């Protein structure tokens, strides 16, 4: 599918908000794919982190929002510590998550979890999951 890239499609405001939330400059990324290769969850992502970084550089707000990447990310920081350009990619993923979560969206609904799951899981699993995937 052809993608139109022009001054009209590049959402500058989105890039600025990402930079403000994450403190990172996505333009530093030169698309080497080290993040994607190192990511333990990339096999379950529809778009690997490298692709999301490219979409972010091009201000493709909607496309970034459609990917499941940041919702599959485990915040393990493997991408961050391996990035040869020194981009803290985990922070970029967090910023992308927050742009959705701050619209009062929950990716996991705490009240709908089966009682058995809540009983079985260690507290740190519940707390970290709610912190990362609920508003």
């Amino acid at each position, binding site marked *: 599918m052809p993608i139109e890239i022009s001054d009209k499609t590049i959402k500058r405001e989105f890039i600025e908000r990402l930079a*403000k*939330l*994450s*403190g990172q400059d996505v333009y530093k990324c030169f698309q080497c794919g080290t993040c994607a290769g190192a990511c*333990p*969850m990339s*096999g*379950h992502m529809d778009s690997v982190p490298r692709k999301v970084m490219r979409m972010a550089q091009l201000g493709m707000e909607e496309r970034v929002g459609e990917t499941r990447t940041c*919702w*599959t990310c*485990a*915040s*393990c*920081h*493997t991408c*961050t*510590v391996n990035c040869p350009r020194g981009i*803290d990619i*985990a*922070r970029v993923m*967090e*910023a992308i998550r*927050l742009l959705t979560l701050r619209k009062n969206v929950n*990716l*996991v609904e705490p009240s709908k*979890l089966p009682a058995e*799951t809540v009983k*079985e*899981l*260690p*507290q*740190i*699993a*519940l*707390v*970290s*999951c709610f*912190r*990362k*995937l609920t508003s």
Partner: protein
Amino acid sequence: MKISYYPGCTLKTKARNLEDAAVASMAALGVDFQELERWNCCGAVHSLADDDLIHHVAPVRDLVRAMDQGSDKVVTLCSMCYNTLARANLLMRQDEVKRKTINDFMSEEKDYHGEVEVLHFLNFLRDHVGFDKVRERVKVPLNGLKVATYYGCTLVRPGNVAIEPPADRKLMAEFLEAIWASPVDFADATTCCGSYQVLANPDAALDVAARILESATRAGAEAVVLSCPLCEYSLARKQDELLQKNKISKDVPVFYFTQLLAAALGLGSEACRFDLSPRCSVELLKSKNYPIDAAVVGV
């Protein structure tokens, strides 16, 4: 030197075996450990957004509690608590603007500037107890036990809070050598177990858990040692499902590092808490003829 101990939520409930073994081992080694008074949940993860300061309040409050206790060190066992407290501490030391905002917000507390040092128990054992002293006190040398040293994420990433230079991977090995076990380094020693995705993307978490367990087995390990209750859940508690789905070829015994310490120090079943460990973990120890209480079978 006064040392505070921060347990965290999971150690008081699902990971009693991580805590009980550590507390009993400290007593056996003659170290005075004082649990923090009125500690609260650390929040489990560090907030990564620049404008999100409210989530740093919980871990900073715990650090203030340690300062109130007159301690210059706070020791943690759980890897996630360690990471969260250590990163919050670093923020309070390094970021003047955010420090002021957080201190102003917590006007009922004393101002905090990162006075307390956050230590993981492994660092504490090496630097303040000494592995030599541990080795001298061992009553049950774990000779012949080949154990994979699993760090996971939060002990080694990001680098500014890593318990040792991340490329070294020596600390857990040195610990195991101190209790006469044989450490096994393996390719996935620092691969994430899937963390909180065990709830949101369970299939992805199962795949990565299988990868870690298979990698440890291939490297010649008989068991895996770790320090995080979430890693323990994914690597140990999910093994029945991993076997059912043919994602792993055989069950792999998993231990908290504190349990092996307590066992090597010759402490009893009420300290080692192998009753809370997987059945195959207990069977492995019994097969090695270590003096494990015959009534303990595991779960």
